[in-house]
């Protein structure tokens, strides 16, 4: 067993002991086998049982010495440089900003300033930066729907690796990024627009205890999701409802949930001729399904984004949701929710039919696992592109990603190897920051991921035209799903014409 695996195993054992899942004798025996006695660890049993866990956790969550040594070596010429990154509030950015960047700064002498902003402000700042070519931001956080827009404004990481071998991180292994994410998030035509940085993705989360109590099986299809949800609402409503949606009128959240339903019913947003086809037969069936599902949701769901949806499950108001996997570790946190250990994650319901990507327009990839990933890239306008490249490699290397996943509350990694990292696997137990849902996330990314189209007008279409139209429909402003979707189609046509 190497040092890394030994520490990971010890962390897991300690965690079990502190949680009372292992007796003291077994723990001491295991710890001594691993070459670490209680005294050596500075632990005193009885009065301070959690000190070891905390101290060890800190030791455990430090970056790899190899990575730090490399940073010290290559970072010297750039000491004193300041790098800027504007990013949305995501688990990787938050973990780096609050807990990890100090390691990078100490090792290299490079200062990193991270601005955490709402997504539309990030887009505004990047747009201004490329319009002025001022290089205010050295690194760009690029939402998957902006790849086309910024593809010419950032370095292709493969070119950076080839051009500056002396700055390339040993074992960075760019091929380790999940291929589906590279294609769905970070690639535009043949260029890599940075590397996959973050991957929130829709998975199915349900209350196992309620399902078992009512003799239901985890929903494997859309029909099962509906019949299960109806049964739960009928049996347990109005205290507990079968499903919670994210249906706030005019909010991007509504568009996200709708696309999952649309793709799951064999529809798509655009066809190969780049025409909106959400109003075709499959699109209407999807909206009819969504309407039926809404009937059994809690009152007030029309005012919820994903936050309200997550809260509904966390507080025991709803028994299932098809939503971002990042919620799962939160649900498992007994200090924050009523449902710790009661939720299970499974892959999204199987689609009734699935349109092929080549039948869609603007790079749209139908899949019930709606993804909202992002890339990290070095700006071509940066005044310190080499220092930014070092940071980018460090922030997206396997070691840092494992730390992010452990610190960032079980967020899905974008690298294949990190899913198998012992530090990540050690957290696959019920509790805050669990990673026990990550196998489902990985499978969803590989097989069921859906990606939105990529076009300059998409920000307006996805955050206004579609969710406002759907909001009006659910508020009763249209006579039928067909009428609503036709109106949305005509509005999208107007937007596309400019």
């Amino acid at each position: 067993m190497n040092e890394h695996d030994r520490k990971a195993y010890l962390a897991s054992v300690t965690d079990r002991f502190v949680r009372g899942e292992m007796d003291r004798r077994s723990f001491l025996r295991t710890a001594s086998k691993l070459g670490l006695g209680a005294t050596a660890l500075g632990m005193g049993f009885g009065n301070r049982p959690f000190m070891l866990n905390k101290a060890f956790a800190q030791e455990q969550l430090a970056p790899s010495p190899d990575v730090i040594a490399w940073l010290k070596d290559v970072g010297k010429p750039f000491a004193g440089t300041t790098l800027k990154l504007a990013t949305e509030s995501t688990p990787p950015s938050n973990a780096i900003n609050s807990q990890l960047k100090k390691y990078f700064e100490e090792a290299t002498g490079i200062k990193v300033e991270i601005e955490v902003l709402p997504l539309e402000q990030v887009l505004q700042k990047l747009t201004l930066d490329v319009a002025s070519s001022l290089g205010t931001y050295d690194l760009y956080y690029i939402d998957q729907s902006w790849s086309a827009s910024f593809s010419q404004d950032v370095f292709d990481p493969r070119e950076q690796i080839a051009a500056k071998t002396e700055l390339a991180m040993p074992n960075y292994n760019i091929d380790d990024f999940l291929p589906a994410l590279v294609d769905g998030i970070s690639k535009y035509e043949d260029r890599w627009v940075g590397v996959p940085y973050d991957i929130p993705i829709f998975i199915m989360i349900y209350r196992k205890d309620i399902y078992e109590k009512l003799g239901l099986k985890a929903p494997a299809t859309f029909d099962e999701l509906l019949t299960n949800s109806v049964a739960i609402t009928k049996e347990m409503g109005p205290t507990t409802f079968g499903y919670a949606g994210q249906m706030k009128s005019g909010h991007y959240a509504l568009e996200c949930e709708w696309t999952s339903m649309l793709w799951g019913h064999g529809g798509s947003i655009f066809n190969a001729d780049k025409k909106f086809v959400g109003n075709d037969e499959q699109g209407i069936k999807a909206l009819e399904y969504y309407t039926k599902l809404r009937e059994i949701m809690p009152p007030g769901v029309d005012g919820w984004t994903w936050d309200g949806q997550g809260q509904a499950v966390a507080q025991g108001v709803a028994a299932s949701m098809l939503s971002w996997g990042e919620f799962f570790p939160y649900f498992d946190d007994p200090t924050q929710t009523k449902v710790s250990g009661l939720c299970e994650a499974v892959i999204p319901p199987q689609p009734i039919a699935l349109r092929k990507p080549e039948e869609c327009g603007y790079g749209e990839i139908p899949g019930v696992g709606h993804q909202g990933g992002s890339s990290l890239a070095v700006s071509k306008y940066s005044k310190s592109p080499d220092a930014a490249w070092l940071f980018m490699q460090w922030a997206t290397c396997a070691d840092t990603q494992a730390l992010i996943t452990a610190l960032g509350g079980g967020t899905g990694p974008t690298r294949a190897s990190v899913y198998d990292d012992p530090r990540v696997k050690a957290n696959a137990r019920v509790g805050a920051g669990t990673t026990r849902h990550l196998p489902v996330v990985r499978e969803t990314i590989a097989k069921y991921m859906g990606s939105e189209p990529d076009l300059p007008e998409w920000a307006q279409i996805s955050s206004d035209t579609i969710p406002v139209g759907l909001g009006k429909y659910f508020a009763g402003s249209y006579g039928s799903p067909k009428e609503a979707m036709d109106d949305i189609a005509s509005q999208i046509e107007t937007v596309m014409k400019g």
Partner: protein
Amino acid sequence: MAVAQVKRIAISDSPWPWLLPLTALLVVFTIYPLIYNIWLSFHEFVPKSRGLKFVGFSNWIQLWNDTRFWSALGVTFLYFIVALTIEIILGMSIALLLDAELPGFGALRAILSMTLVIPPAIAGMMFLLMQDPQFGVLPYLLDQLGILGKGTPILATSSLALAGVLVAEIWQWTPFMVLIFMAGLRALPVEPYEAASIDGASAFQMFRRLTLPMMSKVIAVAVLLRGIDLFRVFDYVFVMTSGGPGTSTYTVSLYAWQQTFSFLKWGYGATLSLTSLVIIMVMANLFIRIAKVRW
């Protein structure tokens, strides 16, 4: 600059040395942004070329044909009229009630001013929670009173959403009216009331014939200040409904913000903002003339 020169400027009769700092601030923070906004309204940002392109009057033509804008303008006017009317009536009523030196009224007046220090976005969040269909106190009370059905999502119902937002607005800003009206009431002379009382006038007659005419200037100033603010409403709508459901609570400010910052249509956003500014200026000047407000 020599000390003698500074002294000479300081004792000169010319007002310009003293006006210069204020003029500079006005030019930098008001005049220039206004001129830039006008210039911007004839341009549009083109994402592909990463620059502004001259588009002539097309933003203004688009505005004229934009049903979303007219809908937002209608919502804004409705919001403005309803909120202002209720705030004036409630504000004056409460001010009249509190215009007395009774025990505890001092504390009441102090408490009233507390709503004003809460940021509108926070007040919006408070009322968002209070109107939650499942655990909110307002739907519960309305259900108990038989006004609304149980679990009615006020903010997600087209016919109720604007009223839901107005509740937050009125709760937060009625005390502002109360404080202004009270200051006015305290400054009124007592002699006319004594004379009216001797003549046998009723309380209502005194209010209608004395208080209202003498308070007209104060009321006009309050209406002007609140009216301008109400027409720019953004925070409550943004936090509570994001303009929904559909477009039932979409205001002009929210629409301008969205076009500018979410969709990067800087030219069209500037056109919307300028239109809003022109409407406010016209309305304010008309009101000043009609109400004969003198500054």
